[in-house]
């Protein structure tokens, strides 16, 4: 086989993106646990460790740029490096959203709307990210397509949750409590939005994977 060094670099890139995916998912899971158990010290950890994810993102970005500049990948190699280059951005953003969740956890002083199961939504989107990375690693466009299809249900759950919160706000007169309630409710709406975005990033990873494998940009647009 020719270009052994180049082949090794491609393999390394794949392994490193998958490893970054693993780290991001575990931080996101930790943020969810912190949210569920109102564990502020765990939330602090998630915030502090985000720097490591950012650094890893920058390192991998630099690896991709080196590959483009020095090895000039074409065809499936080009699609692989280009997709990886985009996927690491999604992973980095999921890391940022985990930080948001951690910040909401620290800021929250009481639980509202316990009937809205945010953790269920978050667990499901986390699983989507994890499986999207599996599909990328295995080069399976079928798996990626199936994972992306699950996002509709997430969108429905998030939309129902937001509607329930807003409707309650309209219906109920909170009197003196109103200011506190507004704080909590905005944070809650942001939480719902962030969980939904994690699902969107999972879909992006799937879309890039389908493009990488099949040169099919259908999910991207």
């Amino acid at each position: 086989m020719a270009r052994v060094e180049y082949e090794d670099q491609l393999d390394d890139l794949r392994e490193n993106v998958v490893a970054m995916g693993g780290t991001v998912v575990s931080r996101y899971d930790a943020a969810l646990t912190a949210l569920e158990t109102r564990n502020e010290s765990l939330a602090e950890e998630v915030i502090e460790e985000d720097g490591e994810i950012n650094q890893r993102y920058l390192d991998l970005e630099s690896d991709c740029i080196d590959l483009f500049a020095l090895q000039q990948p074409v065809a499936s190699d080009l699609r692989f490096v280009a997709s990886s280059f985009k996927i690491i951005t999604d992973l980095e953003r999921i890391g940022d959203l985990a930080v948001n969740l951690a910040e909401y956890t620290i800021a929250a002083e009481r639980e509202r709307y316990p009937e809205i199961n945010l953790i269920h939504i978050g667990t499901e989107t986390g699983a989507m990210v994890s499986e999207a990375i599996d599909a990328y690693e295995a080069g399976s466009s079928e798996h990626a397509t199936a994972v992306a299809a699950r996002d509709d249900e997430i969108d429905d759950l998030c939309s129902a949750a937001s509607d329930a919160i807003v409707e309650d706000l309209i219906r109920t007169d909170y009197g003196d409590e109103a200011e506190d309630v507004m704080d909590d409710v905005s944070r809650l709406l942001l939480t719902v939005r962030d969980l939904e975005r994690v699902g969107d990033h999972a879909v992006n990873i799937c879309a890039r994977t389908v493009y990488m494998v099949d040169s099919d940009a259908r999910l991207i647009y």
Partner: protein
Amino acid sequence: MSQNELNDGEAQTDSNGDDSTATDGESSTDSDSRLITTDVRTGESTGHGGSYETVVETRNLNVYYGDERAINDVSMEIPENQVTALIGPSGCGKSTFLRCVNRMNDLIDVARVEGTITLRGTNIYDERVDPVALRRKVGMVFQKPNPFPKSIRDNVAYGLEVQGRDATDERIEESLRAAALWDEVNGQLDESGLALSGGQQQRLCIARAIAPDPEIVLMDEPTSALDPVAASKIEDLIDELVEDYTVIIVTHNMQQAARISDKTAVFLTGGELVEFDDTSKIFENPDDDRVEDYITGKFG
């Protein structure tokens, strides 16, 4: 080959191309003994944009050197006013293919060509085709710049005179400008062409090749002997040339093929044309696994 042979008394039309019937009726069988003439092209600007007409077409082309087959049953259609790149490993037949288009292989005794190559519908291997007239329509630029050991002016004048056109100062300037060389050699036209740098020499050769106003310019690795700056000037020039000419280029530099060509043909060992498609398709998502392996460097 003497100058007299090249100047074999073609009927001339004026260079303005006013004669609108000159070349349009080629599909009908011509009673003229010469199927390829040096008449000036006309009607090229009638359709702007849209799809490109085929200018060269090969059908089941096979080329043998003695018993060895260098081109294996190649059929392809080369669009006009586009850059078509031929790529592939050494010995894949891409240069042989290029040399078939202006019958340079006629000069090799053991070479034998089967199948057809047509230039605007005329079989160029038809016995009534004068290969010398053909080569005025199909110019060639080689790997190593090969200007004549004459002045810059005479190098370009040669290109004009083979077409029977007067080598006026105006026409010489026009050709040098078209080859992006005028600004650099203006004022030293009587100096030797060999005194120029390699990149300038190559552009002088391009000026000489396009002076007879060919339809097609063949280029056989035209930048492989040049440094990157000189090569990039040639690449820019190719981009300009396709407004007036069809360019077919053999290159070993795949990034160059990717940068400058509209269509890419990939030949693999044995003279087989494995894939021919838009250059972006070849370099982003080729259909054939062997092409994928070749362009990603996993070949062999």
